[in-house]
């Protein structure tokens, strides 16, 4: 279950680092950081019940990724309140925390533990993760030798094997080649339809319609429209066509 009320989030807007002289002269001002701030989210509220799936659509810079990072908890809202019940699994930047000099197997362990498992639990799932990734012998090579598609496959395989309760997805359905894409899409769909609470950020309107039951359309940090996924997508596409 996810519930967010009246989320506001701002970032400091510095045109550039101050020069040394400027910094010394105006040190109190810079340290206080009361300069211009950019509001990425302006009063967004949403609720996803357990097992529900919410699509988040909107143009670049509308605040979609900021919203996800707030829901994930890696960033705090400037004001507002968030309540999330359940283990959150991010599918944001696949492979955040991968180290190029470590092997696929070593990276699986670190990544799995970062996602909230004990080492033993990760090792229990090792076999199915490796099998799903279809990496074969490469699994015991340093991942700097992988193609980017292979790295994505590994990261995706770890993420879907963590029994997520809440999935936070940022535009990642396009993983690897076509056959792996179909397989990963299928695995994801099974999770989502199988009762995992999902927030899904995407520019792929067809995918949003297929995966989500509800959707919100963000524009400049505000909710422009919300409701049944298909309807919101139609409305959004229509508005884009006119623009």
């Amino acid at each position, binding site marked *: 279950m996810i519930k967010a009320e009246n989320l506001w989030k701002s*970032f*400091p807007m510095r045109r550039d680092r101050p020069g040394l002289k400027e910094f010394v002269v105006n040190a109190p001002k810079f340290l206080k950081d009361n300069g211009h701030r950019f509001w990425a989210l302006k009063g967004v509220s949403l609720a996803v019940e357990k097992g529900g799936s919410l699509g988040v659509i909107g143009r670049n810079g509308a605040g979609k990724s900021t919203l996800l*990072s707030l829901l*994930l*908890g*890696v*960033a*705090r809202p400037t004001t507002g309140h968030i309540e999330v019940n359940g283990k*959150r699994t*991010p599918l*944001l*930047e696949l492979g*955040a*925390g991968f*180290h190029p*000099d*470590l092997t696929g197997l*070593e990276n699986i*362990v*670190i990544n799995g*533990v*970062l*996602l*909230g*498992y*004990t*080492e033993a639990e990760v090792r229990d799932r090792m076999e199915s993760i490796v099998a799903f990734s279809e990496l074969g012998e490469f699994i015991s090579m*340093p991942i700097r030798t992988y193609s980017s598609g292979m790295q994505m496959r590994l990261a995706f395989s770890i993420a879907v094997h963590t029994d997520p309760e809440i999935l936070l997805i940022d535009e990642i359905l396009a993983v690897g080649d076509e056959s792996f894409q179909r397989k990963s899409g299928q695995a994801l769909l099974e999770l989502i339809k199988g009762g995992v609470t999902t927030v899904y950020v995407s520019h792929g309107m067809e995918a949003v319609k297929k995966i989500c039951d509800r959707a919100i359309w963000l524009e400049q940090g505000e909710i422009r429209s919300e409701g049944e996924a298909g309807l919101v997508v139609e409305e959004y596409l229509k508005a884009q066509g006119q623009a």
Partner: protein
Amino acid sequence: MQISKKTRQQLDLLKLLVKKETAVRYKRTYLGFLWSLLNPLLTALVLFIAFNVFMRFQIENFALFLLAALFPWTWFASSVTISTNALTGNVSLIKKVIFPKHFLLLATIIAQLVNFVFSLPVLIVLVFFYGGVPSLNWLIGIPVLIMVQFVVIYGLALMISVANVYFRDLEYIVGVLISLLFWMTPIIYPLEAVPAEARVLLAMNPVTYLMQAWRDLFFSNTLNWQYILVSGITAAVVLLAGLLIFRKLERKLDEVL
């Protein structure tokens, strides 16, 4: 002992981060982990030649004298230097994964501690070589001093790593300060050699008495409780300041990284 799954997971995470830190650092070198020992030894060799052979410092057993302070110093200096970038160098992790960020610092310090522990046998061999004997003092002194030093490093790492996110010049300043601090710490010279007027300067250095205590332990086989106490209090103050600063600045990390 029964520990909760959450604790287990956190311990595993810390262990893996330490392992990664050690494994990755020398992964693509031929000598590998050996470098962590070779590094301070080669530094010691240079200092030994410069001050013992060229400048003829009148200090008995100069090799032991030097290493007894240089090994712990290396743990201190490398931990502080590496932790400066512990946050700025792990942006994707911090912005995309929920985990305790201070683990990045702890992992750095523990990995360097492991190097230090592996250098202890060298010291012990040297003590034997100069006719010393292992003593009970070591059993008490080594763990106590490691603890004190861990606390002071952790406190500094907390402040510096998080401040470096806001003020990236710090990375370069720390480099200069560490080499300055090296000469302001009784490592190649004894504390007693410093004139009384100048001791004030050394007292401001948070590791002066700590390094002197390490040397007293290995070189003179004494536990200098006075120095240990002063170092301990300094460490506690530094840690407290570090925790306060880290806690305050950590909240907005996502906005500036």
